[in-house]
């Protein structure tokens, strides 16, 4: 009973198409009949209470989680069980994690150079040029030789964004990128994400930053209990939520009495 049923016929310019995706952990159903089509350049914000399956959903897209039913296509590649398609999809899809997951034993620069050199076969010089350019873009190039632990949380997350961008992905997934940050560092990360959105990157963001959702999202999707409950453009979503659970959630998250 998903509002997303309308996506049964995916638009021609769809970057990501999930159809009837279901996932179980043993007896517990983590995702129920997920249907979602994301067009090229579209920005989606996924929100919902904890345990509602938001992270699980985006982690299925780059196959950090497997799923038992349904189909996921990324840029025309149907995600299968074989290393080849999984690898193809992961080269197109960048991911930013809640806890940054930078490699602590490498400098910031090396963090950004590793994957292009190992997976795309870039030369050291190419990888370094790309890395430096993207570190400059997230305004952290003067820290390139430092180790991750020498940076603040906000800086680390910006490095993580640059590291993902070094792979020249077509889609970026953000899994609660600001949840582990001190409040004063949230803005620098959101600003980086807004910049990315303005350049036309296709993005799916799991976040509770509703200001960010209002500003950049094309659609806000609300999940509960492993299913998509409601999806709407942000102005409708915030001013006129249709489902009781959405209203309750928004009330809690926006601290309205």
């Amino acid at each position, binding site marked *: 009973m998903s509002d997303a049923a309308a996506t049964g016929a995916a638009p021609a310019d769809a970057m990501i198409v999930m159809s009837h995706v279901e996932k179980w952990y043993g007896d517990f159903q983590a995702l129920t009949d997920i249907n979602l089509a994301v067009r090229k350049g579209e920005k989606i914000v996924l929100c919902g209470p904890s345990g509602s399956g938001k992270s699980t959903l985006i982690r299925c897209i780059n196959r950090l989680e497997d799923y038992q039913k349904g189909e996921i296509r990324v840029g025309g590649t149907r995600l299968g069980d074989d290393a080849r398609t999984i690898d193809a999809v992961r080269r197109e899809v960048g991911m930013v*994690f809640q806890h940054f*997951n930078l490699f602590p034993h490498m400098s910031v620069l090396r963090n950004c150079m590793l*994957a292009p050199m*190992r*997976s795309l076969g870039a030369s050291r010089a190419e990888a370094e040029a790309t890395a430096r350019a993207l570190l400059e873009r997230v305004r952290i190039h003067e820290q390139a030789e430092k180790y991750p632990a020498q940076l603040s949380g906000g800086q680390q997350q910006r490095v993580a964004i640059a590291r993902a961008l070094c792979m020249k992905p077509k889609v970026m997934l953000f899994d609660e990128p600001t949840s582990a940050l001190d409040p004063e560092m949230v803005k620098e990360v959101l600003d980086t994400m807004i910049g990315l959105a303005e350049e036309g990157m296709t993005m799916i963001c799991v976040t509770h930053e509703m200001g960010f959702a209002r500003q950049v999202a094309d659609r806000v999707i609300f999940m509960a209990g492993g299913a998509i409950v409601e999806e709407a453009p942000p102005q409708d979503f915030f001013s006129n939520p249709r489902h009781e659970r959405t209203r309750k959630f928004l009330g809690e998250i926006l601290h309205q009495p």
Partner: protein
Amino acid sequence: MGEAEFLFLLTGLKWTVLLSLVGFAGGGICGLAVALMRSSGIAPLERGTAGYIALFQGTPLLMQLFVVYYGLALVGLKLDAWVAVAIGFTLHASAYLGEIWRGSIEAVPRGQTEAAKALSLHYVARMKDVILPQAIRISLPATIGFLVQLIKGTSLAAIVGFTELTRAGNIVSNQTFKPLLVFGVVGILYFLLCWPLSLYGAHLERRMAVAAR
């Protein structure tokens, strides 16, 4: 104890060093293979290596050397003493190092593997560039501790005919009737072998801690 006896002890020391190097090399290479299989997520490999580790951790090294040298000879496989000892120490060391390194690999936070996968790093790059460098750092105290144990464990090679340091000490002691002096010297030689290794381990640990902080 004269010069000749001391030189004899040094010849014994040479064998101890060579046996240790064989154990380090064989144990290191095979131990890495054991650790990778043990943490591979492939059930038959994990069960197989778990059994292997249980077997070689659960039986004395002395008995393992006996079986490889005398036991295999009984069933018609006559091995050169060097080969037998190399196999024995490799089996023994790879079981211990395999388990130490398996634990270290699993101690690296899951997010590291996930980030590497999300960057489409394949298994070899994921292990070589991301997981193992961090696992080695975690495993350093236990690894050095085991290698020091292994150096001392080489004395058991005497049972297959090696005149390594302990056996040499025994012989000299029987000739000179000065066990306290002879084994005192033997002890000092072992210490001079093991202590720098411990120091080097501590040094590496400090250096890697600086790099990671």
